[in-house]
């Protein structure tokens, strides 16, 4: 779980987060309450309390105009692959 949340936090820090990611972090931290030891049970506390107290800082980092970040630009990927095999991309067709 800590690994999953760490990946999510990195996504937000990389500027690829959206509003749902903040909600997910808060929701997912509840799973750690069932952890076996105190270390696990408190592992999510830095994220939860910083989300609670420094929410504007998180909100500066996330993208506001979109609900979903695919982390992938189709157009540039098609262009790159076309360059590689020496074809002309047809963007109007799709």
């Amino acid at each position, binding site marked *: *779980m800590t*690994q*999953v949340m760490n*990946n*999510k936090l990195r996504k937000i820090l990389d500027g690829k987060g959206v509003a749902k990611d903040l909600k*997910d972090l808060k929701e*997912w931290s*509840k*799973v750690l*309450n*069932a*952890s*076996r030891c105190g270390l696990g049970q408190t592992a999510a506390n830095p994220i939860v309390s910083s989300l609670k107290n420094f929410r504007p800082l998180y909100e500066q980092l996330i993208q506001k105009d979109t609900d979903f970040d695919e982390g992938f630009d189709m157009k540039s990927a098609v262009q790159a692959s076309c360059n590689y095999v020496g074809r002309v991309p047809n963007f109007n067709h799709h």
Partner: protein
Amino acid sequence: MSNLIKFKIDGVECMAEGGKFIVEAAAENGIYIPTLCNMKGVKPKGACRICSVRINGRLMTSCTTPVTDGMEIESESEEIRELRRSIVELLFVSGNHFCPACEKSGSCELQALGYYYQMMVPRFPYEFPQKGVDATSSKIIKDQNRCIFCKRCIKTIKDEEGRSFFAFRNRGHRTEVVLDPVMAEKMDDATAQLAMENCPVGSILVKEKGFDKPIGTRKFDKQPIGSDIKL
């Protein structure tokens, strides 16, 4: 049957012998609490957290907590169901569990729990960790992609002198359950078969034994997990 005590699970009056673990006591009363790392007759570990229940406002694992008189246990509330479902999803995410191609599909407890909680797709992003398959032993294939670190093989598969065939290697997220290469050479067929059966997932496989049960006769083909306990 002298020291019978009364306790409640989700408001249902239950009776069991005092000192029994909650999972067993609930099973005697026809209430199924899902488990992964727990095994009958083996000292419980409480590692998988699937059997978490709420007692007095605290989350406890029911495989390691003995019942006491008048205990009120909350096991099937929406919150606990959601917690268990997310633990199953986490296990699917943190390994590489490709059920359709797995030799243990249909007899796998993790897969059965996925069906039991009607999991369609994990809510967490897949991690696709890089893990290997150890097939150096003559009897057993150890597929690290599917291992969920329940420690059942370490606890149950031992030689006549009480030494374990399996052991943990490394720490943290690099932990692996490995087979001792020297002891593996002395492993007999019955022990290898037992190791495969005791593994809740398809991480331990006996060589040349995959897909030996046809579809329809596998462990969880007709009945979902826990239906032997449920009233």
